[in-house]
């Protein structure tokens, strides 16, 4: 009888040891103070900030290195202005068709299609409809850059995914696709 108790006790203990694992909780650490940074880390919370978040907006008026001011406003008139007057500042060295293509395939092709025919995967699956083919629209490099920066109608802005230079490179590639359609 005594041994039965022992067996039950051991079985119970093993069950307790093994059953507590919960994938929704992080694991134990050997020396937490070596794992956890003393200064604030990306996406961490820290009391030194007013709203407690590490992710802060830059101070007002901050300009990113290499940033060129873009003064055309996000309006219909602005679009027309960009379409007519805006020209790519890229010189022959910064034009990079391969990079433009790679970026286009990541950020644009999902709706506009890899050929720019408006038949991306999301359109084929009918999640997004009415994406035009570049062939059917009058576009210039200025208008493409404008739309990448501000978005147009259902398309959102891609300014936080692509830098200014990258946007110009993509604009180049869009014109190339349009010429091939």
């Amino acid at each position, binding site marked *: 009888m005594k041994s039965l108790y022992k067996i039950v006790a051991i079985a119970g203990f093993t069950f307790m040891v093994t059953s507590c694992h919960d994938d*929704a909780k992080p694991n134990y650490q050997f020396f937490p103070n070596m*794992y956890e940074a003393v200064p604030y880390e990306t996406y961490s919370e820290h009391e030194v900030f007013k709203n407690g978040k590490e992710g802060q907006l830059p101070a007002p008026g901050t300009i990113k290195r290499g940033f060129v001011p873009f003064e055309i406003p996000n309006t219909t008139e602005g679009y027309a202005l960009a379409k007519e007057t805006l020209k790519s500042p890229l010189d022959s060295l910064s034009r990079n068709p391969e990079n433009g293509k790679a970026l286009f395939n*990541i950020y644009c092709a999902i709706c506009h299609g890899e050929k720019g025919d408006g038949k991306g995967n999301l359109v084929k699956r009918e999640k997004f409809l*009415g994406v035009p083919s570049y062939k059917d629209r009058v576009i210039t490099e200025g208008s493409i850059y404008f739309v990448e920066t501000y978005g147009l*109608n*259902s398309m959102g802005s891609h300014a936080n995914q692509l830098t200014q230079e990258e946007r110009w490179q993509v604009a180049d590639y869009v014109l190339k696709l349009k010429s091939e359609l």
Partner: protein
Amino acid sequence: MKKVGNHKSFSRIFFSLALTLSFSLSVFSQDSTSVDVAAAPATGGNADAGKALFNANCAACHALDKVMTGPALRGVADKYDKEFLYKWIKNNTELIKAGDPTALKIYNENGQKAMTIFPQLSNTDIDNILAYTSQPKPEPVVAATVVDGNGGSSNDSGISNNVILGALALVLTMLIVMLFLVNNVLTKIAKANGIEVQKDSKSLPIWKAFIKNQFLLVVTAILFLLFAAYFAYGYLMQVGVDQGYEPIQPIHYSHRIHAGDNGIDCKYCHSAARVGKHSNIPSLNVCMNCHKNISEVAEETLAEGNEYGVNYNNEIQKLYNAVGWDKTTQTYTGKTEPVKWIRIHNLPDFVYFNHSQHVTVAGVECQTCHGPVEEMEIMRQHSSLTMGWCINCHRETNVKVEDNAYYAKIHEELSKKYGVEKLTAAQMGGLECGKCHY
């Protein structure tokens, strides 16, 4: 306490066996329902052709029953004169410039947003589109039956499982009872016939026999120690390793749908992985790039969500609440609340890791480290992220040296030094302590 090496695997195996058994028994019957397109009403156009045209040209900004970038269009043919609509669709800018009162009214009612002009559409095309927009709204009966059918069938399978298990248990207990009764009857018969049932002769209890046998005792002790050491080692080695970590996020985001079914590139949302140390948690404006237009998921997606116990539409609504988007007026309210995403992959403070070095320079696929994310309904940590795991990959992975003129010379010299054609990351100094720890 956490999982211990392979310790749990037995219970896991049994559990998964039981699970697979129970699931293999259940049959999910999914009725395929087809929606019949209603015949075109008497507007003179072909609604089917109109639907194709509508989807190709108008659907970017208009839906039939909800306000998108432009107003809802069901029944628009009844509101306005047909000749006016022809003109408006072909070139609304001209109409507005000419000062047409109806055109100006529409323009002002919809926030003075300019509609794209469609000079390529013919009057017949527009007739077809109008026929499509004049169709009566389909009753949502289909949706209800699909959902009901699913719920019903899964309930049925649950009941049938329980019934089968219950029947099995019943049969087994009956067998035990019968054996017991048979035994009783036999003893009674034996007694009645005067035969004495032999009882087991008293022998040494097995424990005592075991203790007396010193050889067995030593072997058992050694085995016990070996096992204990194995499991203790296994336990200690997994401390601090978060492989399989799968927290519940504030908004249920399905990588399976976005990256898998829809095939959106990882870098569309995690754009910083290309250029930065961190792969960013996408800010909500990136979600809104698509979800400004997708406020509800398709019927079949919604049904898939039932399998995971999620209503995807509610999750999209959570996004709208967080980002402050009013989907009825299609405007931002300005009232936002931050989403407290739970970070899954987290290296200790004493390790340096740079995403752009791996993603852009080395061209490593995201899946190499993060696993089949495109199949994960709930994101989890796929790799152990231990140092051994890093080192292993550095030893096995060949460095992409082609098309890299800048390093061509050093690559050549290193290849000569090691006498290999392809350099691994380790041979380029990928094992040096200072590369990651400083």
